[in-house]
């Protein structure tokens, strides 16, 4: 409730429909054995926008993310990023090009502190070689100092996690872990940020914080956001563009309010038995 | 724990160890120390325990008889588990605590490892459990003594015996895939040629290998009249013999020193009957004339003592004799002098340990005798006279 009030009054979403395409998915199909996870999925993400992918559980959203970030190789179709076809670009290279993501079930590295987890995000943009590292002199030292400064001043301050920077991630609450994951993604110097259910399992307060961060990332950092999310309130409030998929196919896409009232979307959730919950969510705006 | 503390405790332990070997006896003359890297545990423990007992007894006998020209002989052993690094550790430990002139090492690898150190310190003469022919080189290993024939010599003695029994016989050599196992292979080939024997089968078996059926199949094809085993204590010799017998082969089987312990051979059961081998010493039970040492051993220990015991015993009295020669000559006890003292040993009467007087040649004593197992007596009995290689 409060969520929607805040967003309506202060940060009403700006539409970027005229923006240039930063990420394009064309005819993407993916199958595991005989099971089709995605079939001919196409949509486009405009630079500077927040685009959301919605759909019932098992619709193929995470498979879509995994295909975009290069963890799965699609059977058909292409992913274009910054005008470049990604089909033969391995995942680490996509990361280096500016594709950053978070994970549905949090993939922080438990053996490292919050700070090191965030620093890890910068990996692909650093030059330190093994010899530098062993000697910790010259480049390694300089690079690490620069990174530390930037992480501290830009990311940790921004996400308000300075009090936990030296803690081990394993000891953190779920909400904080999600925030650290976002911090790590930001450290990757992203051009596009793929967020896989950024507020799942969060309480209201945490959700509000996260919504604010996502908007700030777009507005202040100028980073395009593509997210998968079940929290319809959040999706409707933040998104510039919504893509709904079910059974691995795009049912409809468009502006949030268009998608919200689209009959196929309703029936998609109906088919999955979520319809009552969905109606309730839409009604409440949450 | 700090290293210093460890060192202090080590000293304490060593003192304790010294007590059991009977260290503290007042004497105006300086003690002569015999250090030992002894494999009291591990895969070679059966030998190590025997060696240890043999050295301990001979040291006692020597000291009871007034020591070495009045100098008391002190034996300082350390367990090595038959590992080279542990042996080196033991050497370092013992030499840092004592002024060591005599040393017993447990393996060929250790002897080679420590040899440069012996040369450098120039204080010590070393003997040991290794009969490796490689060590029988006074130029390269001036501080090492082999208490018997080398492995090549052992195989040579056996082949000599074969050539006498059956000229031109077909001979097989089965050896373990270890350093000392490989030692006599080349030498055996040369000796066979010299003696006109047909060495038509050489098999190496992996250590710890359990199944020898394919090797036996090879043997079945080569049909050697004699097969010499080298580099084993027991397994897989019985299996070879058992399978050969069941295939109806009448091959005669032989072993080298470390396969020749009476009890070990006895463990083969019925197939042990007729097993032959070379042994440089008399057995514990040998009844020989003029063998006071054997009598003494039997009076000290009333049960059978292994061939390893004899080896340790013999090593000690030879080392003591070398030291005696040095002292008699009024020289300082050091490596080169001890080696001279050793080389000076001529027609030395061992009191029956060896059947004939001992003369050192090179770094070794190339004497041996062929024995054969008699199942009815459950004993190895001589089947040749003492053979001296020249």
């Amino acid at each position, binding site marked *: 409730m409060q969520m929607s009030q805040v967003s309506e009054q202060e940060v009403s979403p700006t539409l970027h429909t005229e923006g240039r395409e930063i990420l394009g998915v064309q005819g993407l199909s993916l199958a*595991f054995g005989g099971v089709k996870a995605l079939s001919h999925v196409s949509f486009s993400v405009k630079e500077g926008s927040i685009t959301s992918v919605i759909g019932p559980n098992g619709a193929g959203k995470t498979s879509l993310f995994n295909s975009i970030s290069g963890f799965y190789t699609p059977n058909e179709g292409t992913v274009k990023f910054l005008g470049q076809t990604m089909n033969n670009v391995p995942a680490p290279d996509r990361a280096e090009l500016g594709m950053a993501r978070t994970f549905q079930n949090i993939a922080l590295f438990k053996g490292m502190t919050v700070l090191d987890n965030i620093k890890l995000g910068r990996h692909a943009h650093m030059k330190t070689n093994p010899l530098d590292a062993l000697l910790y002199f010259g480049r390694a030292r300089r690079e690490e100092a620069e990174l530390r400064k930037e992480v501290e001043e830009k990311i940790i301050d921004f996400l308000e996690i300075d009090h936990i920077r030296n803690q081990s991630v394993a000891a953190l609450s779920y909400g904080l872990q999600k925030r650290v994951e976002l911090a790590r993604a930001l450290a990757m110097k992203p051009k596009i940020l793929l967020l896989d259910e950024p507020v799942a399992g969060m309480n209201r307060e945490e959700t509000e914080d996260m919504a604010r961060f996502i908007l700030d990332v777009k507005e202040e950092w100028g980073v395009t956001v593509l997210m998968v999310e079940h929290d319809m309130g959040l999706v409707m409030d933040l998104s510039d563009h919504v893509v709904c998929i079910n059974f691995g196919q795009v049912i409809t896409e468009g502006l949030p309010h268009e998608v919200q009232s689209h009959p196929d979307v309703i029936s998609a959730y109906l088919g999955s038995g979520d319809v009552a919950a969905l109606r309730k969510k839409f009604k409440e705006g949450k | 724990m700090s290293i210093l503390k460890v060192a202090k405790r080590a000293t304490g332990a060593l003192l304790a160890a010294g007590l059991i070997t009977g260290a503290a006896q007042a004497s105006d003359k300086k003690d002569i120390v015999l250090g030992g890297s002894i494999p009291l545990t591990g895969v070679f423990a059966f030998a190590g325990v025997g060696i240890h007992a043999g050295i301990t007894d001979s040291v006692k006998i020597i000291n009871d008889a007034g020591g070495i020209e009045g100098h008391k002989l002190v034996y300082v052993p350390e367990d090595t588990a038959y590992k080279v690094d542990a042996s080196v550790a033991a050497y370092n430990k013992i030499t840092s605590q004592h002024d060591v002139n005599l040393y017993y090492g447990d393996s060929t690898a250790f002897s080679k490892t420590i040899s440069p150190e012996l040369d450098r310190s120039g204080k010590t003469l070393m003997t040991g459990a290794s009969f490796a022919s490689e060590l029988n080189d006074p130029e390269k290993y001036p501080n090492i003594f082999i208490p018997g024939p080398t492995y090549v010599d052992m195989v040579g003695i056996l082949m000599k015996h074969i050539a006498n029994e059956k000229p031109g016989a077909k001979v097989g050599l089965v050896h373990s895939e270890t350093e000392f196992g490989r030692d006599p292979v080349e030498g055996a080939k040369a000796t066979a040629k010299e003696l006109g024997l047909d060495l038509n089968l050489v098999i190496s078996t*992996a250590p*710890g290998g*359990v*199944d020898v059926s394919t090797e036996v*199949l*090879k043997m079945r094809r080569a049909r050697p009249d004699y097969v010499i085993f080298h580099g084993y204590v*027991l397994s*897989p010799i019985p299996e070879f013999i058992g399978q050969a017998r069941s295939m109806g082969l009448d091959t005669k089987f032989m072993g080298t020193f470390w396969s020749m312990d009476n009890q070990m051979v006895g463990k083969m*059961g019925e197939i042990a009957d007729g097993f032959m081998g070379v042994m440089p010493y008399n057995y514990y039970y040998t009844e020989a004339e003029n063998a006071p040492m054997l009598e003494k051993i039997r009076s000290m220990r009333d049960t059978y003592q292994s061939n390893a015991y004899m080896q340790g015993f013999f090593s000690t009295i030879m080392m003591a004799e070398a030291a005696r020669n040095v002292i008699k000559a009024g020289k300082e006890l050091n490596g080169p002098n001890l080696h001279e003292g050793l080389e000076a040993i001529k027609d030395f009467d061992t009191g029956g340990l060896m059947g004939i007087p001992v003369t050192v040649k090179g770094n070794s004593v190339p004497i041996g005798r062929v024995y054969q197992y008699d199942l009815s007596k459950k004993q190895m009995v001589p089947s040749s006279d003492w053979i001296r290689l020249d």
Partner: protein
Amino acid sequence: MDWLFFSEIGLAGLGSGGLYALTGLALVLIYKATRVVNMAIGEILMLGAYVFMGFSAGLALPIWASIILAILVTGLVGGVVERAIIRPMLGESAISIFMITIGLGSVLIGVVEIIWGANPQRLIEFMPKDPIFILDAYLSPKVGYAFLIAAIVVGLFLIIFRTWRGGVALRATAGDQAAAYSMGINVPKVFSSVWVLTSMIAAGAGILVGSIGGISPDMGVYGLSVLVVVIVGGLDSLLGALIAGILVGLIETYAGAYLGGEFKMLATFMLLVVVLVIRPYGLFGTHEIERL
């Protein structure tokens, strides 16, 4: 080419392959049910052989009684081991459990050395000694009978595994521990029984292996070849263990016969390398799909 020799070697290889298959079966079974690679299988096998020696030579019991007692005692040890050190590790990483079995192997060697000493020993001969000739080809009687026994045990085992109720529980547990638990299968009991059962199989194999080549505390290295067998066959495939067992037996024996004893281990592990390159999860193993 001496074809008779070739076929005789083949027979001998088949014989040792049978024993590999039997021990490999035990290893696969543990893995299937508990996801543990038991690196101590070789040492359990050794323990079985020593216990047999203890009963037959030490206490002079009849051979048949000694065999049964040795198998039972070793099974009991397996059960105790499972309760004492494997169960507390449930849920730990595969590597930790792998290491704990290495530790176990070491402890078993030490215990055997304390009780029976480090010297190599021979088991009492209990198999017929008449040579076996298959056509013209000679087969060492011990190897032949050992193969026969191994084959019977493997056969019996497979029948039990397919039909008996416990076997079904075991297979269910192998498929999905959590699901099996929710279906009312007593998973801890299955774990215990698997350790008991496989230790018993290993003890039997140990008696056979020991009666062929003698026993010593370091005969646990036999476990290394068995490890190759199950990796080549696929860690979770019973069929794989049987086929790879025979394969490893043959390759090892041929390498030993034609190249020399020192090539045996090399050939075995070369096979392993080749299989790992071509089929990383073994000839019949399942590749687990990784999830993000």
